[in-house]
């Protein structure tokens, strides 16, 4: 049943469940220690971001990373394509000013001149696709709980890790509850497309009160089970040859891609051939 009072975030929540389902897959990449994937992803993103603002072709080899991970991890291409295209317009909104401001011609293809602004705008889009897909692939291959366990091994403070695990566990419960309330409200206001403030405040307020009560009940339940202020996570992690090869190999490739421009050499070879 459509629920008119929910925005995109509401629909996105289903993605969380879906991505965790993907993460329960079984491949060499899924089985890797989460720390190896975390480090590789961070190095990947930092390397992509370190290109200067007009970089275009030099960045293209980096597409091999998400493509390889999606393929070997058996993840659905179409899903990631859709997610990357649908996501956050902020970078595009800010980037679209580049062509208006930077109008000096930078590239000439026959009679057509392309300004520096369009080049840097295209560069922003390329960065965007690369960094976003890397982060989404990380979580789809690792899952949230394992990622948190990896974070803890890296020395992220316990209170934050506990918070992340707890928060994640209750997202689904509260999203369900909010959805039920919004649906009930929308069924009572047939013509309204959106909630007015007069309805929204008591709706959110009651949700908040229910949430506080829930926290109290959870705490009592935890006490009954012997909670002493510490949350214990059982998850053995081991970094073996696989992890070293994966992380080391990719980082070496990133460095190679970063410091030498293969696409340019390839292009020069081809244009040279036709001269």
């Amino acid at each position: 049943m459509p629920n008119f009072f929910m925005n995109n975030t509401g629909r996105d929540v289903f993605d969380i469940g879906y991505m965790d389902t993907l993460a329960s897959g079984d491949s060499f990449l899924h089985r890797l220690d989460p720390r190896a994937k975390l480090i590789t992803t961070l190095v990947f993103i930092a390397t992509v971001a370190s290109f200067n603002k007009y970089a275009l072709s030099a960045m293209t080899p980096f597409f091999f990373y998400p493509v390889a991970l999606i393929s070997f991890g058996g993840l659905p291409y179409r899903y990631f394509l859709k997610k990357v295209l649908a996501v956050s317009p902020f970078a595009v909104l800010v980037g679209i000013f580049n062509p208006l401001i930077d109008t000096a011609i930078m590239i000439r293809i026959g009679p057509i001149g392309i300004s520096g602004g369009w080049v840097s705008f295209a560069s922003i889009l390329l960065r965007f696709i690369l960094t976003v897909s890397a982060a989404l692939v990380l979580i789809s291959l690792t899952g949230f709980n394992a990622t948190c366990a990896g974070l803890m091994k890296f020395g992220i403070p316990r209170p934050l890790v506990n918070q992340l695990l707890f928060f994640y566990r209750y997202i689904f419960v509260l999203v369900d509850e909010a959805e039920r309330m919004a649906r009930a409200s929308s069924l009572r206001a047939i013509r309204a497309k959106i909630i007015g403030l007069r309805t929204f405040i008591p709706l959110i307020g009651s949700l908040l009160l229910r949430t506080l009560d829930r926290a109290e009940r959870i705490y009592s339940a935890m006490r009954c089970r012997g909670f002493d202020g510490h949350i214990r996570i059982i998850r053995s992690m081991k970094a073996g040859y696989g992890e070293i090869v994966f992380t080391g190999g990719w980082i070496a490739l990133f460095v190679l891609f970063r410091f030498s421009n293969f696409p340019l050499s390839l292009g020069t070879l081809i244009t040279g051939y036709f001269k």
Partner: protein
Amino acid sequence: MHMADALLSPAVGTTMWAATGGLIAYSAKKVRQELDERKIPLMGVLGAFIFASQMINFSIPATGSSGHLGGGMILAILLGPYAGFLVMASVLIVQALFFADGGLLALGCNIFNLAFFPCFVAYPLIYRKIVGNKPSQGKILAGSLIAAIIGLQLGAFGVVLETVFSGISELPFGAFVLLMQPIHLAIGIVEGLVTAAVVTFVWKARPEILEAAGRSLPIGEVEIKKVLLGLAAAALIAGAALSWFASSNPDGLEWAMFKTSGKEELQTDESLHASLAVIQEKTSFLPDYGFKKAKPVTEAKHADEETAPWPAVDPGTSVSGLIGGGLTLLMAALTGLGLKRRQGTA
């Protein structure tokens, strides 16, 4: 107003990560010291509450547009600055991981803009000062409204500074400020009114909740001063450590310096620079770029003679770049397709 990876240089991104990391460590220590284990489930569920409430849009009166709750202020009011900060950080982390709102490099910036300002500036310095220990409807309204506006203005200004210092976007500082601040004034007013209304609703139904939140958190001036001092130190150290990196890579900070001071580098150690220049040549496929206006197409040849800084238009190179880049993309796509087919038959 999530800051995005695509607009961020590594130097700015890492500096903000360092600052945010310090804040998280400090808040975690404080939360641990409070030794209130009741708060552990409360924090988790309240994070989920903020997340769930953001799914429901409400109409903004007299504008025809709609919005949703930000939540930083409500968390600070219910949990105090330290726990509120951690909860808001966890919400932003999940958004970055699952929805790619912003991204991982920008995560430091986003936590700073959307959690630090409301929890460590707007809440203790404005909301607490106005509301005090005896809340009333008027005080809650004034406190929430002013605090939300200030918090969002600072956050929006943070986005502007981070973008301008990164130098990926061409938007000049002045225009960007004029674009961001008024929009976020409007958002701040709405956020403030909604926050005030929700807090008042809770206060009327269950006054003891707000009183407990106020009592358990004696927040003195000293602690905030400590936080700010620590932050300044962290930013200085990170900035210093990263400055060599920034100058070995002609993007980000250097570009911003070039724009603002007219000099590409500030005065630095000569010998270090000489050795870094070698790295710089290696690292930049499109070396130094202080020249955009300089070379009209007709002068391309002339430019070639004098060490031809890109983008002195060299049609050969740029076309080669485009062809090579396109081919690389095609190869990546074909590899993916090939692998997929193989896995499908296997």
